[in-house]
């Protein structure tokens, strides 16, 4: 099962790269990027919903998964709002769009709330009690430093734009703040994945961390693309990392559902009194 989950990520990325590289024109490549963006966000929404719905009402992680599903759903709605033209993927010019901006802001706010809920599971489950404070502090500080290094310059530029009177930059600032927060919270996600290594639950957390890292690399590619004035390679890297992130969240959702189904099917084994030791 775990290899099938990893195969989802690898296959999605391989297909995206192959289609984009073989595209006959830059316009066709842009359409392919858009198609993958929509398809993968729809699949990620579905995967997170599957995981969330497997938990009962009131279960802690249900909230996190449902928020992730809502976040991906809002991003999907944003993509579908006016099709590829609005995202600069096709050649049509980009106009100011209040609906799009509202969807971006909402999706980012919900996404941060989702990752906050999942990151808090580390403390809530008591896993923090079993790890040295030094290790926890190191991982949090490192994640925050990487987060600021990657998204800091973009955040600075976008805040400058917004303060200069560009209303459109508000969506960008929200997105940047969401990125800084999400990447800083990667520490607890990674620690949870490492703590659960060897167990059925580990794969959910490995894939969640992989999704977060893919978004981080997507931002790096985005920044490099901005410096290189939108080079096709940086564009391809950005879109491929976006696909990898969505595929990882889809895999994480499926892994969570699979783990819960395994737990639900747990049958009591023989009693200790008659059981031989290994």
């Amino acid at each position, binding site marked *: 099962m775990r290899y099938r989950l990893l195969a989802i990520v690898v296959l999605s990325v391989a297909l995206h790269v192959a289609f984009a590289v073989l595209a006959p024109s830059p316009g066709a490549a842009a359409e392919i990027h858009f198609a993958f963006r929509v398809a993968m966000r729809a699949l990620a929404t579905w995967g997170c919903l599957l995981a969330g719905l*497997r*938990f*009962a009402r*009131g*279960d*802690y*992680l*249900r909230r996190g998964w449902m928020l992730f599903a809502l976040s991906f759903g809002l991003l999907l709605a944003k993509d579908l709002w006016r099709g590829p033209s609005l995202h600069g993927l096709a050649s049509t010019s980009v106009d100011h769009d209040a609906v799009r901006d509202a969807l971006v802001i909402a999706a980012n706010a919900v996404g941060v709330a989702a990752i906050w809920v999942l990151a808090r*599971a580390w403390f*809530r*489950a*008591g*896993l923090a*009690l*079993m790890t040295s404070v030094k290790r926890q502090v190191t991982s949090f500080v490192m994640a925050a430093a990487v987060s600021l290094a990657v998204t800091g310059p973009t955040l600075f530029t976008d805040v400058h734009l917004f303060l200069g009177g560009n209303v459109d930059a508000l969506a960008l600032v929200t997105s940047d703040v969401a990125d800084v927060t999400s990447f800083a919270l990667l520490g607890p996600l990674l620690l949870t994945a490492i*703590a*659960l*290594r*060897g*167990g*059925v*639950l*580990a794969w959910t957390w490995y894939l969640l961390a992989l999704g977060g890292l893919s978004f981080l690399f997507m931002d790096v590619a985005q920044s490099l693309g901005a410096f290189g004035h939108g080079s096709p390679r940086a564009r391809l890297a950005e879109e491929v990392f976006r696909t990898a992130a969505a595929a990882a969240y889809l895999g994480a959702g499926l892994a969570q559902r699979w*783990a*819960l189904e395994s*737990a*639900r099917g*747990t*049958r*009591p*084994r*023989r*009693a*200790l*009194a*008659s*059981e*031989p*030791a*290994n």
Partner: protein
Amino acid sequence: MAGVARGLLNLPVAKRAACEFLGSTSVKSMLETPCASEERVRTKPSAADVFAEELARWLGPHTARRAVRTFALRALGTTPEQLLQRDVSRLSAALRPMLKTLLGNSQSEQVLRAVAARFEP
């Protein structure tokens, strides 16, 4: 004569043969040490081992052992080695919030029922 027979039966080869092929309790009673299979049956895993073994499937072996140690110390004030069968329900109660967070309520109850079943006579 009985002493010679007992001596022969306790030779490793003869002992193995007696254990494997002779079900007679009278022959087994002549052995100074029990058959290996009997030894295995007698050496039960400790309560902490059972908890760690059952939780390892979900939490991984490393965290399962650490969870048993941490919650045994925090909730019962005892080390895993000192856990007794009467501590099982209290240790289960201490581990419940962790499992409930990671697996949800009904799934964690299922896992804890499976642990409890290992201690039933």
